[in-house]
């Protein structure tokens, strides 16, 4: 058994153990994220961290080798849910919990709308994303990218690919009709992070036409690509997201926010 969180800063001795005044330093509590570049939930956490000015070191749980089912990862996440995040002795698993933890530790105003009706609207669209969009994005990712990564002779299930493409038409049409203002439910909030992850993955795996053929979705996505971090840091969260090459080479960027 090995500790999957033993990487980056965690694999180095604290400065207080080697030099200095013995005080703990801020960067000694660096967040560590275990995830996969082709996993939408991992990308949601990275985007949230960048939006909130939180830095995180990352390491890959290789879904192409089913590492999420390994004994080492199941020791952290008993049900194999990705991603997992650690800060000091605290561990939280899954996008639902990890995003709010990161947000709670971050900078700037809260991402969730304060008005009850707008909050409900945000959560409804998050729910639509999770149930009507994410499963089909994951099918396309598995059949077109992750499957062949783990097995050179992998034969994509073309029927599943076509079914996933067809299933995305209705929710993406609904999203296109929904976007009437700058962002999905008005101001930038969590639901924009969710759909950024889905649509980015669609765009890098060759399905960009699904976005480009819908003018409101396309306009929203262009805005997201230049959206400056909510935290006031001079970064654009979208720039952290992996390219197709990054996914194939199992490369996940660290979340770096520059000087505070």
């Amino acid at each position, binding site marked *: 058994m090995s500790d999957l969180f033993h990487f980056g800063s965690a694999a180095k001795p604290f400065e207080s153990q080697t030099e200095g005044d013995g005080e703990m330093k801020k960067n000694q509590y660096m967040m560590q994220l275990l995830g996969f570049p082709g996993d939408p939930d991992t990308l949601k956490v990275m985007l949230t961290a960048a939006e909130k000015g939180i830095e995180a070191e990352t390491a890959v749980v290789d879904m192409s080798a089913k590492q999420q089912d390994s004994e080492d990862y199941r020791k952290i996440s*008993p049900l194999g849910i990705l991603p997992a995040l650690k800060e000091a002795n605290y561990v*939280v698993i899954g996008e639902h*919990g990890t995003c709010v933890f990161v*947000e709670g530790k971050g900078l700037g105003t809260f991402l969730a709308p304060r*008005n009850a*009706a707008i*909050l409900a609207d945000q*959560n409804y669209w998050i729910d639509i994303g999770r149930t009507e969009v994410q499963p089909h994005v994951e099918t396309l990712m598995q059949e077109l990218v992750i499957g062949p990564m783990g097995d050179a002779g992998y034969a994509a299930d073309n029927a599943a690919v076509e079914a996933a493409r067809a299933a995305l038409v209705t929710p993406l049409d*609904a999203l296109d009709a929904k976007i009437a203002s700058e962002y999905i439910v008005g101001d930038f909030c969590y639901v924009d992070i969710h759909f950024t992850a889905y649509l980015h993955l669609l765009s890098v795996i060759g399905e960009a036409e699904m976005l480009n053929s819908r003018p409101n979705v396309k306009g929203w996505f262009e805005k997201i690509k230049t959206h400056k971090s909510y935290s006031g840091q001079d970064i654009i969260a979208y720039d952290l997201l992996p390219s197709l090459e990054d996914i194939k080479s199992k490369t996940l960027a660290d979340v770096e926010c520059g000087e505070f």
Partner: protein
Amino acid sequence: MFGLFKKKKKAEAGMKLRGFPGDLSTVKCLVMAAEKEVKLETELLDTQAGEQDQADYRGLSPFGKHPYLQEGDAVAIGAEAGLAYLDTRGKGFLNPKKAQHFGHQNYWAQVAETISTPVESLLHAAAFGSTADADATELVEVGLNAFDAALTGKKLIVGEYSYADVHWTAVAHFLVLAGKQDMIDSRANTKAWYDKVKQRPSYASLPSLEDIKQKQLNAA
């Protein structure tokens, strides 16, 4: 279940929930409404008869999501939206203030959601005589094992009563109605937690097996 928000006084328009007593999402909203002391009128949406897929309902909820909660002009569709709306409109807030607790609350709510299909499958077998999914018991056991381990040394899931307890109260209630109370009783931590939430007034408002068989959704 995201974030903190300001309460806003609203005219007493009355809140109405359209749902089904054998639907976990509906029952989670009933638990939340009772916990937040929100009065709800109810109307049956017979999901056993496929009403969520009929044109009139799809006109309100294009993807068939339910329950459907309405207060004046405001609408919250599905558990994710409905729970947040009820929490915001009702007494106090259930989201923990501490980031660590907030994170764990949402993780355990997510785990509860991952076993919602098998839990409903077991309930519907008991209530309507359908055949439960072959792997339903096994999937629920996996979730309960993780849940029981997480409850070690705790009275409630993340300290104070939270959204996570709302989700798992609905799950536990359905398991009991499905005749699977042994799945709770055989896990000491889960049993102690269940005995505690069962004492809360919100539990008394939940539908009985007979209510579900009769498709009776009582006002909260």
